[in-house]
């Protein structure tokens, strides 16, 4: 818990000091003493009540939706005010050492769910270090802050490509999804159930035979899906652009319900309709970073796959 006097508190303190000096300079007077005692009690109780206003507050982050870089998102918070009513609560989260303001709760009683707007963050998977609750209530003499530990991460996937080339490529990929026909894909074989698989893909007969859940593995239908090979051995700027194009492709695939496979060094990610872990690909894109030139090649894609970053290597690329 951190306690600091506010500007009003400092001014009040100076006034009290001046009154104290006058009190000691003049001969004793009961009313003088009474008024100084009133000031001290007001300040003292103000501090105790400010601490009491913040201490019982518990806040949990109920849901953190994914959002593109620099785009705002709405967080769901569960605020428990404890017994009684709490006033004037400022909420902020500290993400990677940076405090981000969440909002102001003028009055809280019992348990309530709040929707607060979180301003845009840069791409990445950010761990929330703690959530700060600050209050100046009741008298505004002190600012009391309490940091609450919360277990949450904020995933900010790449935003839409901004460079003209990247934007064009992203639009081309989106158009490719739109131009394709049926979204259904044919079954290529069977494999064991993996976390995130849709229950509609479970092959019940095979599961019954083998005694473990087995799902149907689908093959990207010709023209119905897309395969992206992302080579991360490039400069940061090119990677960012490539990630933006890939993110656009992922969002377009989700929108048009087309299957998508993303291949990169050490990673093969798939998305198809019905998969429950549809956010895994965006999370991977949010966390992706460049690799040195000595890193192995990405897996080879099927014919017609899209290679990213596209175009000739720029100056500064590792490859």
């Amino acid at each position, binding site marked *: 818990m951190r306690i600091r006097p506010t500007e009003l508190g400092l001014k009040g303190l100076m006034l009290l000091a001046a009154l104290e000096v006058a009190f000691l300079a003049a*001969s004793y*007077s009961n009313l003088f003493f009474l008024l100084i005692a009133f000031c001290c*009690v007001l300040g003292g109780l103000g501090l105790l009540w400010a601490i009491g206003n913040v201490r019982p507050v518990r806040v949990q982050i109920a849901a953190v939706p994914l959002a593109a870089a620099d785009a705002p998102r709405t967080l769901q918070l569960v605020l428990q005010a404890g017994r009684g009513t709490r006033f004037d609560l400022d909420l902020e989260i500290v993400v990677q050492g940076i405090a981000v303001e969440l909002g102001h709760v003028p009055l809280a009683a019992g348990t309530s769910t709040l929707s607060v707007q979180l301003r845009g963050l840069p791409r990445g998977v950010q761990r929330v270090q703690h959530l700060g609750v600050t209050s*100046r209530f009741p008298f505004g003499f002190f600012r009391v802050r309490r940091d609450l530990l919360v277990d949450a991460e904020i995933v900010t996937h790449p935003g839409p490509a901004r460079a003209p080339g990247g934007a064009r490529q992203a639009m081309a990929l989106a158009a490719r999804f739109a131009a394709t026909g049926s979204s259904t894909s044919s079954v290529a074989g069977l494999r064991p159930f993996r976390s995130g698989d849709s229950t509609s893909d479970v092959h019940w007969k095979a599961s019954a035979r083998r005694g473990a859940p087995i799902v149907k593995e689908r093959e990207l239908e010709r023209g119905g899906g897309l395969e992206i090979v992302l080579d991360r051995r490039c400069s940061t700027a090119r990677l960012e652009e490539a990630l933006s194009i890939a993110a656009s492709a992922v969002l377009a695939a989700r929108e048009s319900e087309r299957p998508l496979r993303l291949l990169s060094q050490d990673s093969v990610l798939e998305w198809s309709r019905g998969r429950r872990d549809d956010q895994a690909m965006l999370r991977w894109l949010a966390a992706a970073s460049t690799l040195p030139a000595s890193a192995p090649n990405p897996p080879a894609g099927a014919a017609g796959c899209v290679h990213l970053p596209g175009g000739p290597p720029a100056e500064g690329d590792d490859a």
Partner: protein
Amino acid sequence: MPECLFPLLFVLTLLDLGFVEATAVVSGSELVPLWLLAAASPWLRRLQRYWLYRCFWNLGVLVVFALLVRHATTTGLLHMLEDGLLLAVLCQVHLLNNIGERQRPDLIFFNSFLVAFVTSFFAADLVWSLLFVAHSFVLVPTLQVYALARREPQLARDLLRAVLRDSVPRTVAVGCVTALVFVVWPRDFHRDGWLGEAMALGRDFEAGLAEQIRIDHEQPTLLSDALVMQIRPASGRAEQVPSHWRATAFSIFDGATWLPQDSGSFGSRLSTDDPWRGRRDGSWQRTAAPAGGVLQVRLHDLDTKRLLCPLQSTVIRLGNGEGLLLDAKSYGVLAFLRLEDAPLSWIDYTVALGGPPAPVPPSPGARAHLLSLPGNGLPGVVQDLAARLRAQLPADADAERIARASCDWLREHRRYQLPGGPGFARNIGEFLLGSGAGHCEYFATALALLLRLQDVPCRLVGGYLAHEWDAQSGALVVRARDAHAWVEAMLPDGVWITLDATPPSDVFGNRRDESSWWGSVRTNLESLWSDVVMFDGKKRLRWLQALGDLPEALAARPFGVLMGLGGAIGVLCLWRRRRQSLPAIVELQRAVRATGLALQRGETPRELLARAAAAADVDPRRLQGLREAAQRHEARRYAPPAARP
């Protein structure tokens, strides 16, 4: 400044004006413009967006400021104080009228508290204490609203109501803890302070002679219960007995000491009163004929050396006068000389009352004597005050009106306190300035000086105040602690009138007006406040002892304690239940009550609304209020959290 804060700051400013008004240092007419400007501030501040108006306003404030500073530095101390208080409230009104949206109201808070603080030195009476309680109940929620409105400039009505409700227990808690600190905190009640002497007003008065009334000593007074006399009215009615019983009159004041009127030689006695004349039957009589009742007096304290009697006595007859020699003093009292072998332990005598004493036209010498002022001058504050009081009366006001106006002013605006305690004035200047309290001698001296400065001849009278009625013996009992001082003023035709400037509630211990509930409450409040102002080490010890004995006292009354605890738990439960009610439900219930209907068992708010709409006798405005409350109730209870208002 958030707009929602303005009403609270407005009330704070009005209370500040009330504080200054309560001091009576600033005349009411000077405060009227400020009252008007403060009252009009909700409208006037809207004009602040016009450049020309701002120029006009600021110029006006600057001019008034300059005039007040000039007046304060070129006139006496009393005016300086008056101007200082005017400046303080002028600043407050100016701030209230000019604070903008982007400005902080910090200065208004501090200035408001300072006004309350400074005025406490000059009007530490019940009115000030009540104003301060009101001030606290406004200051605390104002600070709370300010803390909240920092982020929410437009507070919703519900939120504002919740904050105001929250402020009440906090204010009470602040008051209770302050009271506890005041009682428990150990301190030196007689500390002079670093600048104690330097800050004292000039000590113009030095010690005088023996047989005198000295007003510059601060020794604690012992309030003895020793019996002085008993007065038994023939009619058996206490109302028949005059309250002021004279012993000595003092006419010469040297700045610190009052000397008796007959301190000169026998031949130089002044002819100021209807003289006592001895008769053959041993009684003493004056010109005025008996017209009132007869009082039987038994004087127990023979050290008074006076046969105490009221101003309107006409006949005194001794019951056991053996061994006594009587001497009629010029101021209308019979002094006695007791022979050494006189076997007396008390003196019985009867006093016949008449109408007003017969007038004795004053000689120019006597008049000059009764108008004389100390040769070493008077503090400026006395002269300023006398001039101001005189200015408040018409030019042709007669002596009696002048005398009564000054007497009333002192009675209403100055505090009574026995010497020796904290807050007691160190001299007559501090008393008249209002920064210290005084006892009856201060009140009488102040009145006498004010009257002489306004050309009204007068003298100070020492004696006793008869007010303790003993129903068992059917007599008024006068004790040593009833010793008192007051003033007698001589009117132009030679008639004396009694003027007692000491507040009656302070001297008539058991004659207070307790007949009405307000009188009783006021008496108790005054007594409580008097305890606060005159709190000292002895009272602190007594309070601490009472606090220490509290567990024992509670244990002695188990039934009462149980009843109290039960009541407190009941109130707490009700309070908790009320707190647990959702604001939407509370608001709905309030709206239902306003329509005069009652929510029936199993009835939904919508059904109730329909019933209210069908009823012919429901006020349309209240129906609309109910409709809005029902809608808010639904929105708050059933809408998803994100959509709740």
